[in-house]
């Protein structure tokens, strides 16, 4: 459904600081895939998601979604097909707007923002219903500014906003990394529930190998701008942390202890 063909991305191209962030990435994401992406720092995981979302322009290669070539599309246009949750919990919501206004914006993703009423009365029931599902008791706080919420609550709200309008693909960029462990667990459970209930095609970047193994049906490991492992189904289900480490050694041959990957 989503095809990445020969995606190459440089940073600071042509200068002494030139970095090859992605080197001819080929990836075929099937409908309903839940892919977890792991790799060390600078492997290109986030860059890959940014290129797909359109916040980075690719230097070479082609991105197609449902047969449509979206490579020249700007980010806001791709947003009609793609939704994202960022690592920074403050990034996905608007602090100065209240909860219902944020949700109203999300409910209009990919549609025009016209001169009709921003928040309509009939939307509120839907918003309350969706908020009740989060189980964070936000359903009675529609008029509260989002700036008053905690990071975890804001991330949960971002998850909800990302799925208000069903996306072709949901991109999660280490979306639990900046939260405390308890809230992170909560957001992970929510992610699992939302993705499974709606059978969303999802790509999730994580630094946590156990998380990468436990979640999703497919695992991609990246190293220095390339995909060095891509497994799915039973093969993925049987994979262990040790296998990943071994795989990493053979591909990278680097001192593993210096890496930020977590062994938990």
């Amino acid at each position, binding site marked *: 459904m989503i095809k990445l063909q020969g995606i190459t991305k440089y940073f600071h191209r042509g200068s002494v600081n030139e970095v090859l962030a992605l080197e001819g990435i080929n990836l075929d994401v099937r409908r309903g895939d839940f892919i977890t992406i792991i790799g060390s720092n600078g492997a290109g995981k986030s860059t890959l998601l940014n290129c797909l979302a359109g*916040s980075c322009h690719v230097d070479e290669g082609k991105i197609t979604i449902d047969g449509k070539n979206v490579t020249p599309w700007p980010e806001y246009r791709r*947003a009609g097909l793609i939704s994202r949750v960022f690592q920074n919990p403050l990034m996905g919501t608007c602090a100065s707007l209240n909860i219902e206004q944020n949700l109203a*914006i*999300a409910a209009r993703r990919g549609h025009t923002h016209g001169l009709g009423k921003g928040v309509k009365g009939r939307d509120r029931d839907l918003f309350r219903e969706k908020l009740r599902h989060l189980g964070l008791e936000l359903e009675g706080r529609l008029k509260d500014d989002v700036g008053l919420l905690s990071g975890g609550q804001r991330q949960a709200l971002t998850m909800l906003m990302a799925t208000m309008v069903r996306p072709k693909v949901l991109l999660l960029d280490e979306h639990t990394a900046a939260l405390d462990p308890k809230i992170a667990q909560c957001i992970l459970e929510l992610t699992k529930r939302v993705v499974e209930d709606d059978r969303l095609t999802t790509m999730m970047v994580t630094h946590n190998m156990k998380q990468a193994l436990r979640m999703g049906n497919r695992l991609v490991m990246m190293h220095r701008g390339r995909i060095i492992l891509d497994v799915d189904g039973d093969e993925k289900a049987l994979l262990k942390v040790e296998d990943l480490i071994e795989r990493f050694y053979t591909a990278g041959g680097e001192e593993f202890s210096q890496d930020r990957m977590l062994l938990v």
Partner: protein
Amino acid sequence: MTWYAFVGALEQGFAYGLMVLGVYLTFRVLDFPDLTVDGSLPLGAAVSAVAITGGVNPYLSLLLAMAAGFMAGMVTGILNTKFRILHLLASILTMIALYSINIRVMGRPNMTLLGKKTILDPLSNAGLSQSVSAPLLFGIFSIAAVGFLIWFLHTGFGLAMLATGDNRQMITSQGVNTHRVIIFGVGLSNALVALSGGMICQNQGAADVNMGVGTIVAGLASVIIGETVFGGRSVARTVIAALGGSIVYRLAIALALGLKLGRFSFTPSDLNLITAILVVAALTLPQVRQRFRIR
């Protein structure tokens, strides 16, 4: 303060109030410090004066002024978004360009409207004196603009504009073209400023290429004073506070100019100093209040 000075301040507060609403829209809603206003205020005046001199209906001339202001704002917006020029610099470039354009529009640096029709004529014909008709008419205009802005900021597009000023990444990933929002928003802001300029020129009977100097300072001072005196969290409250701030600012200046301490009195050349002191007072007042708050 005399009744005459009070009414004069009210009149100025409402007439410049439209400009303040424009400054509020860029400065507070879009988080876009826009100095174009120093050029778009005289642009509105020039277009209105030239149109009236050419026989256009005074009310229609205000529409033309707004259209001109909108385009000036769009230029700043396009320079910022499409040409990636820093917002402050983009607006300064438009502002200085407008100085030349305003002289081109009028054909000379200033022009009078002596004996020409103005928007105040229908009220004068109804028997109202200028000291009543001007504050009344400008009051109606600026309150209508407040109503319009409150409505606008509650529409879907208005929400997108509020979000653009708050979190650009968020609203982009929700599918909004922020370039379009900024270009339109800065345009709308300058349309209001030009409308203000058109009304001021008809009220004082002349348009001058230098009448816009210091507009942004007065605008920011009004917005900040309004927030301190009337401010609140809701959007409606902040829009009303901006207009309120404009009136308080003009009243404060009238008060200062009427002040006599022995042989000392302020002169109009002290206005900049008074404005600076007012803004400092408005910015520090909340902190002072907090420090002396009694539990």
